């Protein structure tokens, strides 16, 4: 009998510096591990590479991944099924409305209108999709490297990452 595909819910992490893995996202899965000494559950994070050919996942999204019946590559054992909650754009499944933390966006609109809308404030309705600055000002989705040791002030390294 073939083993059941294991489904897990995790959060997308930014790409993996130093290793370019095409069509995959890094997903962090949080599971509870029982500490036998005090019989208490503690969260334990594991990172998986999930096959994502359409690059639908962005860092911070909550995604549902499923284990593949056969490993795609030595590193990729899972595939992304769907993005459950995109980062910053969560839809409350009960009502179907867009939310921001503990308020509905329409309530935030309403309150800001009562107080007087700030023209510089973020406009959810007309804001472009996440990732609109990719390849223009945002290069975090591209292959990068861990920041080299900075010896003098002129060495800026604008495209290095610090983690």
């Amino acid at each position, binding site marked *: 009998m073939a083993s059941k595909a294991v489904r897990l*819910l995790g959060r997308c992490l930014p790409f993996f510096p130093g290793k370019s893995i095409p069509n995959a996202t890094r997903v962090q899965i949080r*599971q509870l591990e*029982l500490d036998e000494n005090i*019989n208490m*559950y503690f969260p334990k994070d594991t990172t998986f590479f999930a096959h994502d050919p359409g690059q639908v996942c962005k860092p911070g999204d909550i995604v549902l991944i499923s284990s593949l019946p056969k490993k795609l590559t030595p590193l990729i054992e899972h595939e992304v099924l769907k993005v459950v909650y995109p980062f910053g754009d*969560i839809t409350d*499944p009960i009502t179907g409305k867009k*939310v921001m933390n503990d*308020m509905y966006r329409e309530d935030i609109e309403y309150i800001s209108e009562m107080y007087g809308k700030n023209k510089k404030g973020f406009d959810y309705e007309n804001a472009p999709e996440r990732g609109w600055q990719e390849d223009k000002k945002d290069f975090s989705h591209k292959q990068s490297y861990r920041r080299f040791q900075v010896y003098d002030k002129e060495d800026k390294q604008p495209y290095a990452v610090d983690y």
Partner: protein
Amino acid sequence: MPFMKGIAPIRRTVQYLQSGKLSLKDRVQVFSVHYNRLGENHQGARDFVFWNLPQVQYQNPQVQVVTFKNMTPTPFIRCYLDSGDDVLIDVDNKSKEEIESHLKLVICKSDELLAKEAIAQEKKDNEANFGYGCQRHCICEMPGQVPCSAVCPLPNHMRGKLRFATD
């Protein structure tokens, strides 16, 4: 109760963990609870997570139990099944007991099913048992017992057809 530290250390006893009433169905793979730190309508969900979530994880070690805090205005529980569907349970303004009884109805194994599984487990646990559903099909598999008559015929003095033959 050793290490009686922290709030409600009873939650950290094996007896408490084993007394969890929520044994999720085999279809459930992920059990996620969304609730907020503040808000009266989330109090039931917060109590459920505080008191019952360790029990749920203990009873269902194969399920990923995950919590999300401060994401939506109303609390809910979402279970992801192996078929790809998810079960959405609204727990807005519900008490911990209401949540527990609702979950038991919706996505947990019924008491009859649990009793049947306990009997099946017993059969598996007792290694001396043989037959259908057990580790060994027949007693002839054990060294020291009479070997299988299909493989090694019994001696003639033990065979009824030869002992009681009238001709």
